[in-house]
C-alpha cells in the first residue's frame, strides 16, 4: 500500500459531491476506526501523543496530552464527551469547512477514534451556524455512519457504544472558544470558564470532555491506520503531520492547500497562492486568522509551525493567512478587525468588554480623520493591558495581536492619519 502524502485532502474534489460512505470506505475509510477498536484505548492515546499532533484550532496544544488527561477506567465519571469544534469563526479561516464539505466521513471517523480513545459516550459536532452545506453533508454522513454501525450501540460488534450528534451554533465567535463552546452546547451564554478544573475532568455538563478542532481530529484515524512514525514523517518539523494552509487577500490564487507542517510562509504565499496580484505590493500578513500578529517581508522565510512562529513573536493560529497590500489602509483594516472583536466580546470581563469598543471607536475616529495625538496612547495602553492573564480568556489578547504588531510595523501610517486629519488611502 503506497503511503499517502496528503491524507486530509486525498478524497476532496472541489466542486463535486463528497465521497459517500461506500466511496469513503473504498478509499480506505473507517479502517482507522476498525484498527483502533482492536487496540486498547490507552494505546490509541499513546499513538496520538507520539504522533505529536498539535491542536489545529489555533492554540497548538498537543492532542494526545489532552486525551491522556481524561479519567479512564470504571471509576471515571460518565458520560464522557467529545466535542468537535467546528465553529470556524476566525476571520480569514475556511479550512475546516473544506474538510466538512469535502470529506465529512473523515471528520466523523476522526471524532469516533478520539471518542474510543477516551471511551466517550457521546460525540457532539458543534458547527458554525452559517455552514449550511457542511450541515447537510455531515447530517447525511452521520446517518450513514449510524446505518453501518460506526456509531450507535456496540460499534462494529465491540462492547463500546457511542452517540453522534450534530449541533448547529447560534453563532458567536465566543462559541468557538474552548470553554465557551461547552456553555453554548449546554444552552447557556457562551462565556468562557475558569480553570481548574480542566475540561478533561469537568467539561460538558460537568463531565470529562475532550474538545478538539475539526482538522485535528481529521488526522487521528490516519495516525492509527498508518502509524505515528509515518505521520511525523509527513512534517518538515517536530510537529507531526500535514497542515491546511490558506491564503486570502490580493493574491493570484486565494485558497486552502494541504502542505507538510512547517512549510515556509513564502512557499505558501508565492508557491501555492501564486504571489501578489499585479499592481499590488505586499506589506504584511496575518499568518493564522485575525488574532495573530502581522508578519512582514523579513519573516517570509519562517516555517509555518507553532514553534517557529512563536520564535519570531507571532503565532501559527489557524494557519490561514490574510494578506495586506499597499492599497489597503492598515488603520481601516484594524478598525474592521477590532470592530469584529469588540462585537464578539462576550461581555464577561471588564478589559475586553470595555476596552475593545474603546479601541474600535478610537480607530474609527483616526480612520475618519478625527484622531488626536493622545489616541496613540490609548491604543498603546490597551495593547499593554489587554494581555497575559489580565483578561479572562484569549479573545482580547488575540484581538491585540494584530493591533500591537501594526502599531509597530505601520505606526507612521497611524500618525499620518492623525497629523493630516484624514485617511491618506481615501481619494477625493
Amino acid at each position, binding site marked *: 500500500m503506497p503511503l499517502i502524502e496528503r491524507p486530509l485532502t486525498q478524497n476532496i474534489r472541489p466542486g463535486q459531491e463528497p465521497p459517500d460512505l461506500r466511496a469513503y470506505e473504498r478509499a480506505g475509510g473507517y479502517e482507522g476506526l476498525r484498527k483502533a477498536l482492536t487496540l486498547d484505548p490507552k494505546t490509541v492515546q499513546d499513538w496520538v501523543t507520539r504522533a505529536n499532533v498539535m491542536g489545529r484550532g489555533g492554540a497548538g496544544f498537543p492532542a494526545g496530552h489532552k486525551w491522556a488527561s481524561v479519567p479512564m477506567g470504571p471509576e471515571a465519571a460518565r458520560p464522557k464527551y467529545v466535542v468537535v469544534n467546528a465553529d470556524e469563526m476566525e476571520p480569514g479561516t475556511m479550512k475546516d469547512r473544506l474538510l466538512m464539505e469535502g470529506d465529512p466521513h473523515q471528520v466523523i471517523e476522526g471524532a469516533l477514534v478520539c471518542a474510543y480513545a477516551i471511551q466517550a459516550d457521546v460525540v457532539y459536532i458543534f458547527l458554525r451556524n452559517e455552514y449550511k452545506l457542511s450541515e447537510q453533508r455531515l447530517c447525511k454522513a452521520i446517518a450513514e455512519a449510524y446505518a453501518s454501525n460506526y456509531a450507535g450501540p456496540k460499534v462494529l460488534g465491540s462492547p463500546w457504544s457511542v452517540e453522534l450528534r450534530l449541533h448547529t451554533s447560534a453563532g*458567536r465567535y465566543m462559541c468557538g472558544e474552548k470553554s465557551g463552546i461547552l456553555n453554548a452546547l449546554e444552552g447557556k*451564554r457562551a462565556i468562557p*470558564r*475558569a*480553570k*481548574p*478544573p480542566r475540561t478533561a*475532568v*469537568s467539561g460538558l*455538563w*460537568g463531565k470529562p470532555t475532550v474538545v478538539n478542532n475539526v482538522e485535528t481530529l481529521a488526522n487521528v484515524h490516519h495516525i492509527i491506520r498508518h502509524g505515528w512514525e509515518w505521520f511525523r514523517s509527513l512534517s518538515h518539523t517536530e510537529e507531526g503531520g500535514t497542515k491546511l494552509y490558506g491564503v486570502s487577500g490580493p493574491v493570484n490564487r486565494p485558497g486552502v492547500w494541504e502542505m507538510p507542517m512547517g512549510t515556509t510562509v513564502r512557499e505558501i504565499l508565492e508557491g501555492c497562492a501564486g504571489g501578489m496580484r499585479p499592481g499590488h505590493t505586499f506589506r504584511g500578513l496575518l499568518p493564522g486568522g485575525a488574532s495573530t500578529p502581522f508578519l512582514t517581508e523579513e519573516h517570509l522565510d519562517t516555517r509555518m509551525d507553532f514553534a517557529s512562529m512563536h520564535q519570531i513573536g507571532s503565532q501559527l493560529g489557524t494557519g490561514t493567512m490574510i494578506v495586506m497590500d499597499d492599497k489597503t489602509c492598515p488603520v481601516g483594516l484594524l478598525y474592521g478587525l477590532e470592530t469584529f472583536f*469588540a*462585537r*464578539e*466580546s*462576550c*461581555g*464577561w*470581563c*471588564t*478589559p475586553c*468588554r*470595555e*476596552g*475593545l*469598543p*474603546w479601541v474600535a*471607536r478610537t480607530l474609527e*475616529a483616526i480612520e475618519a480623520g478625527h484622531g*488626536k495625538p*493622545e489616541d496613540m*496612547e*490609548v491604543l498603546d*495602553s490597551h495593547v499593554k*493591558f489587554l494581555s*497575559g*492573564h*489580565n*483578561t*479572562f480568556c484569549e479573545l482580547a489578547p488575540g484581538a491585540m495581536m494584530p493591533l500591537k504588531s501594526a502599531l509597530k510595523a505601520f505606526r507612521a501610517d497611524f500618525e499620518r492619519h492623525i497629523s493630516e486629519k484624514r485617511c491618506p488611502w481615501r481619494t477625493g
Partner: protein
Amino acid sequence: MTTLHVDGKTYTADTAGRNLLEVCLSLGLNVPYFCWHPAFRSVGACRQCAVKVFKDEKDVRGRLEMACLIPVTDGMRVAIDDPEAVAFRAKVIEWLMVNHPHDCPVCDEGGECHLQDMTVMTGHVYRAYRFSKRTHRDQDLGPFVNMEMNRCIQCYRCVRFYRDYAGGRDFDVHGWHDHVTFGRHEDGILESPFSGNLVEVCPTGVFTDKSLKHHYTRKWDLQTAPSVCPHCGLGCNTFPGERYGTLRRVMPRYNGEVNGYFLCDRGRYGYEFVNSRNRIRRPLQRDHTGPVEVSKEEALALAGTVLQSRKVIGIGSPRASLEANFALRALVGPDRFYHGVTDKELRLVRTLSALLKRGQARTPSLREVESCDAILILGEDVTNTAPLLELALRQAVLQKPKADALKLGIYEWLDECLREAMQDQRGPMIVATPDRTALDSLASRTVRAAPADLARLGFAVAHALDPTAPPVPSLTPDTLALAEGIAAALRTGRRPLVVSGYGCGSEAVAEAAANVAWALCRTGSTASLCFTVPECNSMGTAMLPGESLDAAVAEISNGTADALIVLENDLYRRAESGSVETLLGARQVIVLDHLAHVTASRATLVLPAATIAEGSGTFINNEGRAQRSFQVFVPPDDIQASWRWLAELMPHSTRPWKGLDDVLAALADAVPAFKEIPDIAPSADFRLTGQKVPRQSSRYSGRTAMTADLSVQEPKPPVDLDAPFAFSMEGSRAHPPSSLIPRFWAPQWNSVQAVNKYQFKTGGALRDGDPGRRLIEPPEGEPTPYSVSIPAAFVARPYRCLVLPAWHIFGSDELSLHSPGIAARAPGPYVALNPVDLGRLGLAEGQAVTLSVGVASRVCSVIVAPDLPVGVARTPAGLPGLPALALPAWGGIAAVGGHSPPASQHAAGVPPVAGNEQDAHTATENTNATSGSPGERGGAP
C-alpha cells in the same frame, strides 16, 4: 497557618479554602474588587483585584494575577503596590467609567457606593475616553427595587445572587459585548422574596431601595443602631436608619450565625409601620363621649387609678420584647399575667421549645442550616413562615454535590466552576407538606399530606431509623416504603437536618420531626432540629410562665378580673371575636401599642408604645438565641417603650427601674431560664475608650441646623439610660463589641462591604463573635424518650374540609402590612381546594364562598390547589380585616348565597371526636380511629 509576603511584609494566616483576595482582605489589606462577594465568592469577571505574584525571591518581574482566583501557597510573594498592578487596577476603573454615568450627586447609592470607594482606592482620576456612553432603558421591577441600568458595571453579582444563590427565575443577564444588561425579560414585579438584597449586592446604584426613594436620605445622615427584625421568628439582624423622626430604611446587619449578609423582603421593607399615619402618638382616654388626648401625667394617673381600684390582669404579646412582657407580669403579678396568644398557639410554641430543650438534636443557627447535607422538611412552607430559612436551605442542598465536586480538584471559591461541576445535582431534601412550596423544585422527593399523615410519616421515618422509636400502627405499605426511603436518604448525610415548626399548627408534626432528629442522633448522626416560630419573640415569651388568652377570657367572664392591660397586641388577630368581645367587655381596658388597631379602638386608655426602632429590648428567636435590639431614635411626642410605661405605672415606693439594665436584672432574677439575658450585650454604663458609641456617623450633617426653625440653640442630645449609645455624632469611633456595632464603616470603605473589616475571615464571624447568645443547648447524658402520641390517619369528611392556615410572606405579618409595597403583594382572601373537593362541594374556581370555622366565617374566593390532599383546604392566615380563624380546624365551605351544610356547633380548635360529629354518619367505614383536629392529639394508637 501559611506564611506569605505582601508588599515586603510577612504575614501568617489561615488560608485553608480561601483565595488570595480573601486572605488579603482579612489581613486588613486593601485590595479592590467587584465581582467577588463573600457569600458567592469568585468568578474572575471584573479583573479589579489584580496583584503582582512572584515565583520566588529571585523573580523580580512577577506576573499579574487576579487575587480572587488563586490560592495562597506557603512563602508566596505578592505585591499589591507593584506599579504595574496599580496601573492595571486604575485602568480597570477607567474601563468601568467608560459607560458609567458618573451621576453620583443624584444617585441614591452615593456615599455608600462600592464603586466610589474602589475608584478612590485605585487612584483613577482622569478618564481619557472621549466618545459617547451607551444608555439603557430601565425596567419597573415593582415596589421594592429601583433600577437605573446606565450605572451598571457588569460585575454579574446581581444575577449570581438572584439566580444562583437565591434560586429566582425571573431575572437574568441579557445582551452581549458592551451591551450587557441585567433584569427581567420584561417589566414586572421581581418574584423572589429576597429581591431586596440586590440593593447591597449591587456595588453601585443600579439597584437601590425604592422605599427609601420616597423619603431619601444619604447614608451618612442616617441615625442607626443594631436592631433585630420584628417580622418573623428568625431574628435577623438589622440596621434601621432614621432621619428627622422617620424611619427611612432597614438594611441587613451582618451576623455570621443568623442572617449573614441578607434579609428577606418582608424584613427589609416591612418597616413603614413605624412611620404610619395610624401611629398612636399621645395617650388617649376614651369615655362615652369618645376619645380624648390626655397628657402623659394624666394618663399615668388614670392608669394608676385603674390599677388601684380594679382587679387587673395583663395580656402580653409575642411581638413585644421580653422586657415589656416581663414588666407587665411584674406590674400585674405573675399569676395575673396571660400570654397574648390562644391556648392552641401557646401549647404549640411551648411544645416546640420543650422538644428543643429536651432532645439531643441541636437547634441550628441559619449558618449551621447551610452546612447540613440531608434534609427533611416536615409540614413547613419555610418561604412563608421563616423566609430566610429558605435561603439557607438553598445552600444546604448544595453541600453534598459540592463535596463531590471538590474531589475534582476545583478550588472551593471558584463558584462558576463548582456550579458547572455540580450541574443540577442536589443533596437529599424531602419536602413533606400539605401543599406546594418554593423549595419543591430543589427537593429530591416531595410528599403531600394532611398534618396528621405528615406526623405519621415522620414517626414512621423515626422508627425506620431506630427500631426503638415507636412504630406507627396501620401504615399502608406505600407509606412504609416512603418512610424507609426517607430514612435511608437522611442516613447518607453527615449532618442531617429536620425542619418543622408552627406552619401546620400541629404539635404531632413537631413531635414527629423531633423523633426523626432524635432517632438520627441515637443512631450515630449529628442531626439538627430546626423549628420555626410565629413571631419575633414567640420563643422568648413562651419561656415566661403564664397561661394563655383563653384563661384570661375565663377570668373576665367569671368576674375574677374586671380590667386588663393589653400589651402590643391586636386581640382580634388572635382569637375569634366572641372571646375578644368578652375580654374587651372588662370595665377598664388599657392598651399599649404602636398602631390604632381594632383592639386599641375599644380601649378606655391607650398608651403610645415605642416600635422596635424606638425602644431597646431583647428578643429570642427560633434557634433560642437571645438578641438585644437597641433604640435607633427618640420617638416624637409621648411615645416610649412599653416596659417604661409599665415601670412608670408601678407604685412609687416599689419602682426600682430606671433603665433597661434594671429590668434585665429583675428578669434574670425572676426567671431562671433568663439568667444569662443581661450579659448578651454590654450594659448602659459600658464605655468604649471612655465614650459612648455614637448612633450618628462622623459625617452626620445638619446637627446645628435641623431644629433651627424652632430654636437657634442647638439642643442637647437626648440621654439614653438604656444603652451605651449616644444620640449624637460624638463618641468613640473604635470598633465596638459586635452587639453594639451601629453601622459598618471603615476608612476607605463607605459601602456595606466595610463588613470585611469587622471579621477575621471574610464571610466568617464578627471579630468578637456573632451577637446573641444561645439559651437552648442539647442536654448531656441519657437520650430523651421518644414522643409516643401518634395521631390516627387523616380521614376526609363529607361536606367539610380540614382548614389549614396558609402563611404568606407578604400578608401574614401584622406590622409589615403597613408598608404599601408589602400590602400590594398580599393575597386576597381565598380558600384553596383540591379539584376533587371542588367537584365534591360543587364549586368552581374563582367563585365567592363563605368559609365557616366554628362561629367565625369569612367570604373568600376559591382557588385550585391540585397538590392539596383531598379533604384539606387552606386559607390565608393573618390577613387584616378578616375574622380570626383559629386554624387548623374543620370548616364548612358554601357558595355565597347558596345552601350551606350545617356548621359545627363546637368552637373551633376543640372539635369532638368523629363519632360525635354531626356529619359522622356519612363518614367512610374505616373512620373507626379517633380522628381529632390535626393540631390535636389523636386517639391512642
